[in-house]
């Protein structure tokens, strides 16, 4: 089931793409779909059922990727059109084929093959982001499904199947990092996470004005990837699940067996850490541009 949280991310993203968030105010904290302006065909249909008191609680709607909708953002800006983008939460069970837990538990191989096909790509991507090594990521992928096969009877459906798989994969990835730890700790202690560490910002360069093609150039993309690798692993896994894989705070807490407060704290620290790293990189790009002018 799609949560209001997941939906909110899509709208934030769509608005940010229009360049509004960075300069004109804060992102939508409360908004409501006023009407659909334009419907596109050929993408996933995403039935949206909003919960009571959630951000978009008043309407029930069915939207497709790239539908343009009109939002009421009265506290921020009277009305704003936005593009509904639902491409990120690839582990969503609505997008993937419906799978029968009963069939999986009864040992139905065909159903298991469908499970592997539906979820192997996001699990592999998560492992690649976490470990930055193809062989290690492949090992995590295989171990995740081997363990899922072995322990499907223990799956109590308290979380979604997707979250359960992420949980197995996250454990596998963290175990792999710990096994490799003796080699890394000798040279690099920065990957240890210290709860008490001060994460106050030290870089105050405003690089938001850099053009999009520079912010997302191939060099910048590899810098974004490298920055993730410099996060302590306990922050890295939270950031990957929440911001890259699009899990909600609740799903991330289930996947990592952490409280939601701990997830929020680690997510904030991860984001602040990445901001510092990117500020160094983009600040440099900004200086290069001023020299060239």
């Amino acid at each position, binding site marked *: 089931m799609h949560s209001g949280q997941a939906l909110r991310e899509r709208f934030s993203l769509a608005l940010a793409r229009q360049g509004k968030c960075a300069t004109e105010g804060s992102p939508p904290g409360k908004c409501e779909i006023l009407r659909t302006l334009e419907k596109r065909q050929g993408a996933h249909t995403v039935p949206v059922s909003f919960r009571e008191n959630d951000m978009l609680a008043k309407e029930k709607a069915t939207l497709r990727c790239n539908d343009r909708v009109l939002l009421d953002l009265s506290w921020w800006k009277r009305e704003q059109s936005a593009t509904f983008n639902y491409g990120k939460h690839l582990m969503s069970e609505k997008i993937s084929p419906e799978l029968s837990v009963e069939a999986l538990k009864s040992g139905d191989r065909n159903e298991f*093959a469908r499970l592997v096909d539906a979820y192997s790509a996001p699990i592999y991507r998560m492992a690649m982001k976490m470990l930055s090594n193809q062989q290690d990521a492949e090992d995590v992928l295989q171990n995740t499904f081997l363990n899922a*096969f072995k322990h499907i009877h223990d799956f109590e459906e308290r979380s979604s199947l997707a979250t359960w798989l992420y949980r197995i994969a996250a454990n596998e990835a963290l175990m792999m990092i710990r096994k490799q730890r003796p080699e890394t700790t000798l040279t690099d202690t920065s990957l240890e996470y210290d709860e008490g560490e001060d994460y106050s910002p030290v870089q105050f360069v405003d690089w938001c004005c850099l053009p999009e093609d520079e912010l997302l150039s191939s060099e910048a993309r590899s810098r974004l990837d490298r920055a993730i690798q410099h996060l302590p692993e306990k922050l890295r896994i939270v950031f990957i699940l929440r911001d890259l894989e699009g899990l909600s705070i609740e799903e991330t807490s289930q996947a990592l067996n952490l409280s939601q407060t701990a997830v929020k704290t680690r997510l904030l620290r991860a984001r602040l850490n990445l901001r510092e790293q990117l500020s160094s990189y983009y600040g440099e790009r900004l200086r290069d541009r001023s020299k060239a002018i």
Partner: protein
Amino acid sequence: MTKSAECKSLLESLSDYIDGTLSEELCEEIQRHIAECQDCHIVVDTLRKTVYLYHATASEPATVPTNVRDRLFRSLNLEDYLKH
């Protein structure tokens, strides 16, 4: 509250603020603060941009290389379900 204490207190709410999950009241408090504090204004804008950039790169579809998928299906004894 001193200015630096205000900055520090704002920092704790930043994720919720940029995710749009903060209460309206606290949002207004943050907006009032960043209107007067240039450093915090930059931190908010660049933090939001940081998250946006990662969201933008993550929205590209995930794929598994064919040889990795083949080995995965074989390791699970599911090779009879392999189709390309």
